[in-house]
Every structure is written in C-alpha cells, then in structure tokens.
C-alpha cells in the first residue's frame, strides 16, 4: 500500500538511503573497473555526465574488449529505451510544465521511478530527492573507486539490494489481485526468458511486462 506521506516519510527516507548506499557501492566497483580503461578523470566525468550504471558498465566492458563505437552504441541504445515505459508510468503524476520535466528527467532511473510510484506524496519531490541521493552516491562511489577504495564484502550484499527493492516495488504497486497475478506471471516469464535467452536482457524483460500488461487492457 502506498505511503500517504511525501518525502518526510521515514520509510521512504530509509528505503532511499539504503538504495543510495547500494548505488554508492556499485559506484566504487565502477570506479575501480573503469579507471584502467578510461583513466581517472574520464571515469569520474563519465559518472557525472551519464549517471547510468547499466550504460556505463556496458560501455567500459565493451571498450576494454576492443569493441567499435558502433558496437557500443548498439548496446547502449536499447538500454536507453527503458526510459520510455518508466516516464510513461510517471507522466500522469507530474505537473505538465515541460521545463520542470526536463530537469527531473536527469533522475529518471528504475529505482527513483519505483519510489515515486509507490508513494502518494508529490512525485516531483520524491523523484528529485531520491534521485539527488542516488546521483551523489554514484559520483562519490566512483571517486572512491578511482582512488583505490574496494567494495570488498559489501558488493555481494549490495548486489541483492536491487532485486529486493524491485520485489518490494512490485508488491506495493499491485493495487488489485489481478496486478499481483500479472506481476507473478511477468516475473516467472522473465526468469525463463533470461535463463534460456540471456541476450534478451532487460529490454526483453520489459517487452514481457508490456505484453502481460496489455492482455485484456481496455481504455
């Protein structure tokens, strides 16, 4: 059930902080992995100007393996397509001012979208505050990773934050029993898809979610 509070909600604050901490740990890992490929300055700059773990890890992994610029774009563009369904879900809860949406778009990531959708407070504020926390953690984590910090034993546990968060978000955004059924069907179908066709990636999973949501939908 969505919280009735806005960003003063302690549950929202605690969840946003735990997500930011996990993102910070991944920032450390990214900084350590990317520094030998991009150099210190460009690694930090990449986190400052991109703010997308999926895109940045993909870019650095492909650069390290000698991929062409075209190959890197072919992998990054599909990742960027996920912004369309994320924004579509948020649009109804945002003020129509286009300039404000342009600024807020900087914080459009899976986690902040989920937190904004699962709380009944002002979506703009939730997106901005949780996004700023996540962005700060990502950049600071990158700087720490470049400086030689190690995520050590925290990395496996930080890895678990995201599935845990998404399971929780699926539960709180399921308003009726049919939503729960659709979430279970989509989750199971995505596991089967990703285990049998690993190349399907997140975009394949999103296609599954859209297909499940579309069955029987009427305006």
């Amino acid at each position, binding site marked *: *059930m969505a919280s009735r509070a806005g960003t003063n909600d302690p*549950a*929202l604050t*605690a*969840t946003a902080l735990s997500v930011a901490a996990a993102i910070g740990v991944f920032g450390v890992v990214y900084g350590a992995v990317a520094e030998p490929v991009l150099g210190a300055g*460009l690694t930090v*700059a*990449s986190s400052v100007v991109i703010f*997308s773990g999926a*895109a940045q890890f993909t870019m650095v992994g492909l*650069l390290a393996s000698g991929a062409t*610029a075209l190959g890197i*774009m072919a992998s*990054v563009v599909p990742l*960027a*397509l996920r*912004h369309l369904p994320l*924004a*579509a879900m948020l649009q109804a809860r*945002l003020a129509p001012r286009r300039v404000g*949406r*342009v600024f*807020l*778009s*900087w914080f*459009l990531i899976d986690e902040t979208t989920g*937190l904004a959708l699962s709380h009944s407070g002002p979506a703009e504020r939730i997106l901005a505050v949780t996004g700023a926390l996540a962005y700060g953690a990502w950049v600071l984590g990158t700087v720490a990773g470049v400086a030689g910090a190690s995520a050590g034993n925290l990395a*496996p546990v930080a*890895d*678990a*934050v995201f*599935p*845990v*968060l*998404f*399971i*929780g*978000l*699926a*539960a*709180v955004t399921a308003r009726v029993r049919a*939503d729960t059924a*659709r*979430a279970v069907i*989509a*989750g*199971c179908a*995505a*596991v089967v898809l*990703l285990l049998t066709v*690993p190349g399907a*990636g*997140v975009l394949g*999973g*999103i296609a*599954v979610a859209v297909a*499940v*949501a579309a069955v029987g*939908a009427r*305006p």
Partner: protein
Amino acid sequence: MSPAAIVAVVAAVTVGSRILAMAVVPPPRGHLAAVVDRLPAPLFAVLAAATIVGNDGNLDPAVLGGAGAALVTVRRRSLLITVVVGLSGAMAGHVLA
C-alpha cells in the same frame, strides 16, 4: 573514436532518451494508457527477475537469499519491511555460501 568522444556520445544517448521520454513524448492515451496503468507491478517484477538472474545467468547466494526473504514479506506490502528483511536474507545467504 576516442574514449572521451564515446563517453560524450553515450551521455548524449542516455540523457537525450530521458529528456525525450519525460518532456517530448506525449502522455499515453486510450488503449496505451490502459496498458501503462497496469504496467508498474509486472515491470518491477521483471526488473527483479533480471537482477536476480544477472547478465551471466549465475545465481548468486546473497541475491537468492535476499530475493527469497523479500518474497516472504510481499503480503505486508511495506517497502521498508521488504528491504530490511530482504537484506537480512542477503547477508544470511552470503555468510552461508
């Protein structure tokens, strides 16, 4: 293309797609709006599946422990409880592995 130019292009694609999605693409209407209205729970479920399976298909004990513990809490429909219990399960999975 230099690494700096690649970073710039990836930034342009990522940031551009965010702006496009948030400020240019019109809000969904009609049948599409009905689909989007039903999308959040299945979408977060597939994102959970994707982060559990990972890129290489290897199932991590901490992730499995976290996901299993989180699933136990879903009937409570409290994000905080799910996160706290899920992370406890992840630590248990990590220690036991």
